[in-house]
């Protein structure tokens, strides 16, 4: 790398009085003084959150409105701070969950423990748990900071699903394809 010698010319008398700089700075601050605020008045105005944001973990349903989680408990096992607690339950016929064998009876995520690492999302074979756009969690008690299943589904909503894993599998099984 070539060394570039910066030519520092001596300051002129006017510059040494510090006044041109002062007035220039005052013009700048006046511009900001008259201009609009750059900040957002938070609780009323909310920032736009990127779809890639990884906020509070949530449970999502498939496009048909069915529960996706099959309570395999992989997320519970992988969760580094042990924030997830799942009570597995069985699926009764007629519940609309014929494609799977199990569904969670209870699904709790303790947000006081969660470290937002996203491992649960990564490990989930059913793509049922996602870290989504909610960025603020607050509550008045420890109990309030535990997200139960209904809350998790409420936060999660429904995400589009292009794989349709179980339908494809079922269709393949009915066709009697190789390996089924």
């Amino acid at each position, binding site marked *: 790398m070539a060394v570039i010698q910066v030519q520092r010319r001596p300051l002129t008398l006017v510059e040494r009085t510090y006044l041109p700089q*002062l007035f220039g*700075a*005052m013009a*700048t*601050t*006046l511009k*900001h*003084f*008259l*201009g*609009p*605020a*750059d*900040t957002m*008045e938070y609780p009323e105005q909310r920032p736009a959150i990127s779809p890639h944001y990884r906020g509070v973990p949530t449970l999502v349903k498939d496009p048909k409105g069915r529960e996706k989680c099959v309570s395999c408990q992989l997320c519970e096992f992988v969760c580094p701070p042990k924030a997830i607690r799942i009570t597995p339950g069985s699926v009764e016929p007629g519940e609309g969950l014929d494609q799977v064998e199990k569904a969670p009876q209870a699904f709790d995520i303790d947000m006081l423990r969660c470290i937002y690492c996203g491992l649960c999302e990564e490990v989930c074979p059913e793509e049922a748990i996602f870290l989504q756009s909610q960025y603020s969690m607050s509550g008045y008690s420890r109990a309030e900071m535990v997200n139960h299943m209904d809350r998790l589904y409420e936060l999660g909503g429904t995400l589009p699903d292009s794989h349709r894993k179980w339908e494809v599998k079922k269709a393949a099984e009915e066709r009697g394809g190789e390996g089924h």
Partner: protein
Amino acid sequence: MADFFFGLPAIVQGLIKGIAVIVVIFPIAAACSMAERKVCAWIQCRPGPNRALPPMFAWMPGSGILQRFGVFQLAADGLKFLFKEEPLPDRVNRLYYILAPVVAMIPAFTTVTVVPFGAYFGPDGGVIPLALANVDVGILAVFAVASLGIYSLILAGWASNSKYPFLGGIRASAQLISYELSMTLSVLPVFLWVNEPGSAGSLSLARVVAFQSGASGWGGVWFLFTMPVSAFIFAVALFAETNRQPFDMPESEADLVGGFHTEYGAFKWSLFFVAEYANMIVGSAVFVLLFLGGWNPLPWLPLARLLGWMQHLTGSALWLHPLAAGLISIAIFTAKILLAIFVFMWIRWTVPRFRYDQVMKLGWQKLLPLSIANLIAYAIAIAVLQK
């Protein structure tokens, strides 16, 4: 009403005027603290304090605007200072520790008494300045009493028994001495001009305004334009004397925690705060009187001519009534002071703080020689002009 007022005994008149000034200055000084926060916020592209709104005022029309301008925040802060616990650190010198904020307030409010803040016209058409004490020593009294304010900083710094306040107090005293010289020398040309040979000598501030009240020629020009260097030196020294940025060495949060008031809290701290703004108001008032034409609306447009026009336009003699003239002149004067205070704040949030050695260098090596040269140049010019 005016006759009734002037019929009162002199002491009652003085008391009423004194209370009026305190009632006006104290809220203005307090409001300045909110203005400071707002100006700071706007310059930094923030909205500033705009949340506080007690539910009991929410029904009031216009309370939303007051809320946006932080008026209730100001009231809440003031009440907080009154009601919160007054901490008294363990190893301070109790007497001086408590005395220091009081000493800060006294000169701040005393100087107001000799500052004329308006004028009305007597029956003979002569200008009668509105002041609590229109003394002949005018500017001298302001300088003498205002410099006493530094004792509060030194007392606070020393009585706190803590090193940062102590350094702040030392800096305050050194800075005051350095800039007091330039300040005094910078106003001398004004008074050389005002005291023409042969006339009775006076240091009255009202007289300086009278010399800027001409309707034509050199008499109508404000001294800011005829003596720009004086005005500049005075303004810089004013920043230094009121300990405003970029000269707030005694406070200097970056290197002295909180400077002289590090150990202070609650109401005592707020007294320092109000005193600082009261000093700024008086300093701005003196600057306006000396260099910005006092209560005259514009150069070559003295108060008398403005009121004459208004009388001519409306056909009412009410404009020259002492009360009307007094109120208009006070309004003009106050507007100029508020503008000057805005400039104070504007500069505070524009330039960074000087280093201590830079402050000393600027004071002794730059401003002082400049003010002496300025004085000599103007003394010669005035001697030639007023021969």
